[in-house]
């Protein structure tokens, strides 16, 4: 490798926009950028475990190709030559795709997910596949079959989950940008814990084709990066109609970078009173309130809003998501791909042992919950009731957006917690997503942006919630905040 640590350190601290400018102006090559990231991964990955697979060979090979294509004038996309990583639930042709599970420990995907194709087309360089909670079920990345991920701000702490590998990778600059997925908070909460920027778009904004399903009516792909601007550039490449996903929206896609610099004059902020009630850590509350105050000082108006059914969101979510998951995960049966138990005695034995050995505790717990909720005699009382309440929760938001442009509040009730702290208390773990789950159930776009640090030096993220398909507004608000603050550009000292 031809570069000194200082040069590669400089390259890996650049924004996507700066990388693009440097590459297109010939200041440095895609190969140099790729090597700089691969070097950092080699050096820091053992401490973080943000990747399940590092695709070093193919990254170097595509760097050569992309350099040539850029020089030949064939590629001018803002993401051309930009390294990225994918949460390990995005199918990637010829690459191991595990969804964080042992049951897919040998699954080499025969095809690309829609978002994989989009980033390949844009000329991105895939660095690897990020660690994650098994099948995206978890809020701490501790349910991964490939070991827990450590928070770059303090290795004794969790990075959040389920997109914890991606969030940690961005925080430690082991990738400038990653794609996460969010079902009940899996982009926003780890973004908050790792001090980075992440956006979960409106349900249906980004195709789910090729994304290994957890809960189909909630799963949504979104970018995680250092800044809102980097997220906007990425969202431009992945959002939009894909006919292979019937739930994908036909709503036109704007250029998300076009409105980043719009002034926030007259912005109406809604603050849900339920999000500042009991359960919210005081330190986090203070930091969030200060951030909202900063918007107010810029001329925004702040209004308390009521989301009267939000306290029902967690129980509703823990019916609907496991119900869908119990069915979605039935295909992992040892018949066609993935793990199969040794020496099956008969069909039933094969199913039972393959699944008992292949799935982890949390996944099994949710399959059990979901199966129960859908069972004859319980379906009406659980699943149907949950769907009814889901509509009420959605209506609360619809109502609120009559009067406000954006809703602001905490992403999670606390900053990152210690590894192992909540592992044996599933309910405490589920309550981590108290503020993100209502947004997921409503299908609304939500973001997390870094707005401060706790006394002990852990980042705190603020959640921004927009109206349907109002991602451009969220990114605009976040970008404007990031023009005035530097929380998002700070890096953990030991990875500087």
């Amino acid at each position, binding site marked *: 490798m031809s570069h000194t640590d200082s040069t590669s350190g400089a390259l890996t601290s650049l924004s996507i926009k700066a990388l693009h400018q440097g590459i297109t102006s010939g200041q440095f090559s895609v190969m140099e950028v790729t090597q700089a990231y691969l070097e950092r991964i080699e050096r820091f990955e053992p401490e973080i475990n943000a990747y399940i697979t590092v695709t070093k060979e193919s990254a170097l090979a595509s760097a050569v190709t992309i350099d040539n294509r850029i020089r030949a004038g064939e590629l001018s996309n803002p993401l051309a030559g930009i390294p990225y990583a994918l949460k390990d*639930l*995005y*199918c990637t042709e010829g690459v191991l*795709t595990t*969804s964080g599970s042992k049951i*897919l420990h040998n*699954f080499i*995907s*025969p*095809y690309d*997910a829609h978002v994989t194709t989009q980033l390949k087309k844009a000329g991105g360089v895939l660095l690897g596949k990020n660690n994650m909670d098994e099948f995206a079920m978890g809020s701490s990345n501790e349910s991964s079959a490939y070991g827990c991920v450590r928070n770059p701000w303090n290795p004794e702490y969790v990075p959040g989950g389920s997109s914890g590998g991606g969030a940690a990778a961005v925080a430690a600059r082991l990738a400038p940008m990653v794609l996460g997925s969010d079902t009940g908070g899996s982009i926003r909460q780890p973004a908050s814990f790792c001090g980075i920027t992440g956006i979960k778009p409106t349900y249906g904004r980004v195709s*789910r*084709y*090729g*994304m*290994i*399903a957890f*809960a*189909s*009516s909630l799963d949504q792909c979104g970018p995680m990066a250092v800044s809102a601007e980097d997220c906007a550039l990425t969202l431009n490449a992945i959002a939009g109609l894909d*006919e*292979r*996903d*019937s*739930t994908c929206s036909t709503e036109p896609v704007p250029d998300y970078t076009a409105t980043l610099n719009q002034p926030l004059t007259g912005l109406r902020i809604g603050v849900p009173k339920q999000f500042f009630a009991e359960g919210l850590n005081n330190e986090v509350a203070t930091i969030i309130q200060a951030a909202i105050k900063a918007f107010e000082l810029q001329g925004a108006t702040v209004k308390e809003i009521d989301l009267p059914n939000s306290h029902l969101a967690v129980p509703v979510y823990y019916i609907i998501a496991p*119900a*869908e998951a*119990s*069915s979605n*995960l*039935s*295909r*992992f*049966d040892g*018949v*066609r*791909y993935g793990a199969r138990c040794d020496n099956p005695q008969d*069909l039933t034995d094969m*199913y039972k042992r393959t699944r008992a050995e292949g799935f982890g505790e949390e996944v099994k717990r949710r399959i059990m919950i979901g*199966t129960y909720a*859908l*069972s*004859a005699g319980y*379906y009406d009382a659980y*699943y149907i009731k949950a769907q009814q309440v889901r509509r009420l929760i959605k209506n609360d938001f619809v109502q609120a957006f009559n009067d406000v442009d954006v809703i602001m509040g905490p992403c999670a009730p606390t900053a990152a917690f210690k590894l192992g702290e909540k592992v044996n208390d599933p309910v405490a773990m589920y309550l981590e997503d108290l503020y993100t789950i209502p947004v997921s159930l409503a299908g609304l776009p939500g973001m997390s942006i870094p707005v401060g640090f706790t006394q002990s030096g852990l980042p705190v993220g603020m959640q921004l919630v927009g109206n349907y398909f109002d991602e451009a507004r969220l990114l605009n608000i976040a970008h404007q905040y990031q023009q005035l603050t530097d929380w998002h550009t700070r890096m953990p000292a030991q990875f500087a």
Partner: protein
Amino acid sequence: MEWETVIGLEIHAQLATNSKIFSGSSTAYGAEPNTQASLLDLAMPGTLPVLNKKAVEFGIKLGLALGAEIGKHSVFARKNYFYPDLPKGYQISQYEFPIVGKGQLDIELEDGTVKRIGITRAHLEEDAGKSVHEGFVNQSGIDLNRASTPLLEIVSEPDIRSAKEAVAYVKKMHSLVRYLGICDGNMQEGSFRCDVNVSVHKPGTPFGTRVEIKNLNSFRFIERAIHHEVARHIDLIEAGKGHLLVQETRLFDPDKGETRSMRSKEDVNDYRYFPDPDLLPILITDADIDAVRADLPELPDAKKARFMSEYGLSAYDAGLLVQSREEGEYFEAVAKGSGDAKLTANWMNGEVAARLNRAELAFEQLPISAEALVGLLKRIQDNTISGKMAKDVLEAMWQGEGDADSVIEAKGLKQITDNSAIEAIIDEIIAANPEQVAQYRSGKDKVFGFFVGQAMKASKGKANPATLNDILKQKLAG
């Protein structure tokens, strides 16, 4: 009091779409295993179903033909169970909100009366794959070519009271789906198969214990399976062993002519149906329905009524001719070409039908075109050949020996209608048989047949029978 049989049917009609209901793979039958299985059919992680709109249109077609309510908001649901040939671990079907609601189908009974059978519903669903056991030791193969093939499951009310009615109902439905062009009706290939629910009771009492006989794929099997099952029920009940009769699923073994237990109610899965979150509800507008209605062909009952009024056919003849759309169209082409609907009906329902039966061919496989049959009927009408000779000509045409005229020419079958030629033959016969002539003239009319036979023989069957009769009578009268 007599036992009464109560039957309800579930028919699975495979929809004749080119591609599968949720994937782009071909639905063609008989390909090498797993060559028509896409990533979705294999249930690869991350794959998603995309609805084939043609299947929806076909569902609406059937609904309209059954006079049924069309579900304007129909929903796909997942039916969850584990089986190796069910790759996703669930089947995408419809549960609470099917595409077709309540409707009816009229069937004609043997005594000519019409009976109305209620249709409960019809819903869209995907087929499963197949397990393959031949050629494997201690293992099974899985062929997913059939996985995600579109099916319409048509459920009847328990309105059917005998095996004969059941067969009439299935035949009528079979005819209907083919008329509509939504199913090829091929029962051997499993494109049209049915499950029969059977019970017996005494009229006025509640229905008896119901047994489901699965996957019957021929009209004969349906009839035999029901007969066997009804007898089994009655025997058990009358022997005081009614408690041995359990609600279960049974299979019919055509070799033994018996049904045997497949699984009992206790083994029944809880399918945990719920709306499939990967698919949006199907929303159907009145305009959509009108568009499909405008595209509906004339249906068998309407066609039958028209054949009776327009062509003066009997209900029996018309009923036979409307069994398939092809046959009805063929009839009209021949009736128009020949200008004689009755003659056409007689030939089609007589000689042609008999030959098809003997050869075990479906009407669509008839080797003689409508045009060719017109050619044959014309030669009967213009007395070129007799009806009897026409049968021989038909045989030659069937064997591919050409059209009617060339067969008549090649075989020299042209009737002799020239009076002088016939007179010459008759004169010779009268001269050679003075004894018989004397008998006839003394009043023995029966001898007339002898002269006809001799004359026909001498003309090698080519003499026009009517002309021959006339001349013979004159000459014998002296």
